[in-house]
């Protein structure tokens, strides 16, 4: 990685260029690079290679950095024999549905609050944002009981994907960052589209959305990642084992599965998120700071 443009930080360039400075810098650089690799990359390596070791090698007291014998079939076994493939697909369905519902519901809500500005819109927004202050775990029990018997509709969402999708759509963070982004789109642009005869929905689809690609990316990534990583909520609302996502299934099966197949399953559960991260690093980090920094 090339050196970035120098910005004045804690240590002065002059101090850095002295002999001891240069030596210290190299030392710290090497220590950080190796330290981080060992601490954060090595566990992933361990997991991935552990999956292709034999069961006896995994149980051996003498640990091996490289697999002594290769058994890539444990991935296939975990996928088919243990049925992790099905659980993986379940997660995919849950994540895709959550992504779709959140985009549909939250984008249109943010559009209404930002550009259509109905009477009492700010009150609604305030009530939505107020939920951000509430700890999720304090609402675990009442939300669970709500999902068991949804008021007004009196349906039981347990063991349906809606139990994941709909509560996820009540996401004030999404609405907040979407609205803030929509606010920056000049009204004149929407007005000129209106004059050209575009209706309210048409303005959203052909003017607002194309301009909002960065924020849509952030919302999409967080929607998918959030559902993919979740454990407690799907464990509660999807007791039917055939419908569980891979995170819940892995924990349930972890006691019974052979160690190498368990590791293979863990790799499967992680790879989509890691790939997503490698592709969308910039967006993920941008969303991270957007959510927490600006007070």
């Amino acid at each position, binding site marked *: 990685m090339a050196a970035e443009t120098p910005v004045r930080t804690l240590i002065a360039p002059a101090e850095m260029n002295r002999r001891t400075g240069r030596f210290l810098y190299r030392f710290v650089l090497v220590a*950080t690079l190796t330290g981080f690799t060992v601490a954060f990359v090595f566990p992933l390596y361990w997991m991935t290679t552990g999956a292709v070791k034999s069961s006896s090698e995994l149980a051996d007291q003498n640990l091996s950095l490289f697999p002594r014998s290769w058994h890539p079939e444990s991935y296939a076994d975990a996928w088919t024999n243990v049925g992790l493939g099905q659980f993986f697909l379940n997660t995919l369905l849950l994540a895709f549905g959550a992504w779709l519902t959140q985009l549909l519901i939250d984008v249109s809500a943010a559009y209404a609050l930002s550009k259509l500005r109905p009477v009492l819109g700010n009150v609604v927004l305030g009530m939505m944002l107020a939920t951000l202050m509430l700890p999720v775990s304090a609402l675990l029990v009442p939300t669970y009981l709500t999902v068991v018997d949804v008021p*007004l509709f009196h349906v039981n969402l347990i063991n349906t994907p809606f139990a994941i999708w709909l509560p996820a759509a009540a996401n004030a963070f999404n609405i907040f960052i979407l609205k803030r982004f929509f606010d920056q789109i000049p009204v004149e642009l929407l007005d000129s589209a209106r004059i050209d005869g575009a209706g309210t929905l048409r303005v959203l689809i052909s003017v607002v959305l194309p301009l909002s690609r960065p924020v849509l990316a952030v919302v999409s990534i967080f929607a998918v990642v959030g559902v993919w990583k979740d454990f407690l909520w799907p464990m509660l609302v999807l007791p039917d084992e055939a419908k569980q996502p891979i995170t819940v299934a892995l924990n349930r099966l972890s006691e019974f599965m052979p160690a190498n197949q368990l590791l293979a399953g863990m790799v499967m559960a992680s790879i989509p998120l890691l790939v997503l991260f490698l592709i969308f690093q910039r967006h993920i980090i941008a969303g991270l700071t957007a959510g927490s920094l600006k007070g």
Partner: protein
Amino acid sequence: MSVQPLSDAAEKTAGDDGPRRSGPRPRRGAAILNPRIRRAVRENLVAYLFLAAGVLCFALFSWYPIVRGALLGFQQVTFAEPARWVGLDNFRRLFDDPLFLTAWQNTGYFTLLALVFGFAAPFATAVVLNELRHGRSYLRMTVYLPVMLPPIVTMLLWRQFYDPGPGLFNSVLEVFRLPAQQWLESENLAMVSLVLVSTWANMGTTTLIYLAALGGIPGELYEAAELDGASVRQRLWHVTIPQMRFILMITLLLQVIGTMQVFVEPFVLTGGGPDDATVTVLLLLYRYAFVYNDFGLASAMSTLLFVVLGLFSVVYLRLTRSKG
């Protein structure tokens, strides 16, 4: 938070299509208002149509559970019959449970340890990363990798690392001729082990937030301090930390709020053991609700958790308000 007055909205929308307006010649008085009001009502209806699904989701899965959660603590809830009011009964039973106090103590201990590790590590990391001119994006990426792992994977992986038999950690200790540890099986060490995983898994987020904040400190401040003869350590103490004070306070509070709700770590790694040493508030709440099906008791616990976390939230709000 002001409500947009109706007349204001009507004024605006009426102005929008001035050139295109056809129809009866505008007259003074009520007649001129009627089309305006009608138009305003229609625009509001369209707006609420777009807002409807969102409001419904919030109403059903957020606002209603908030109200219900506040009431549930005072009710006895079974699926067989309608909820019954029992007053403070749930709270009384809660205080009678010897595990109740243990859970709060354990949670407090976890939070404290998590602050010691989880506060120092990301800050130190961010300060070092901010000085490095090489490999920054690689380091930034690696520190965030654990955040992207599903927590359950992290826990299952670390459970293998902590394994007293062929576990990685004890093997490493052996290389350095150090005694093997009962990571998760010893009462003294179990909680520390949980905090270690938790810190590993979560420090990426805080580190990147600090890094962004460090990048915003004006370089002139350091130059001025340097001209005044401040050493690197003095500059860190008198420039970096004061400049970061706000963001440090915020992450401190968020971390307290987050770690007080610790669940996955004890649930997967220790199940609350050994000898209840890692039973946390949320783990106990989970048992009340979903093992014993005593939703009233669990809700009383939620209410207490909410009150405690609410105090921190109020401080958080105060801080962000005064800044923004």
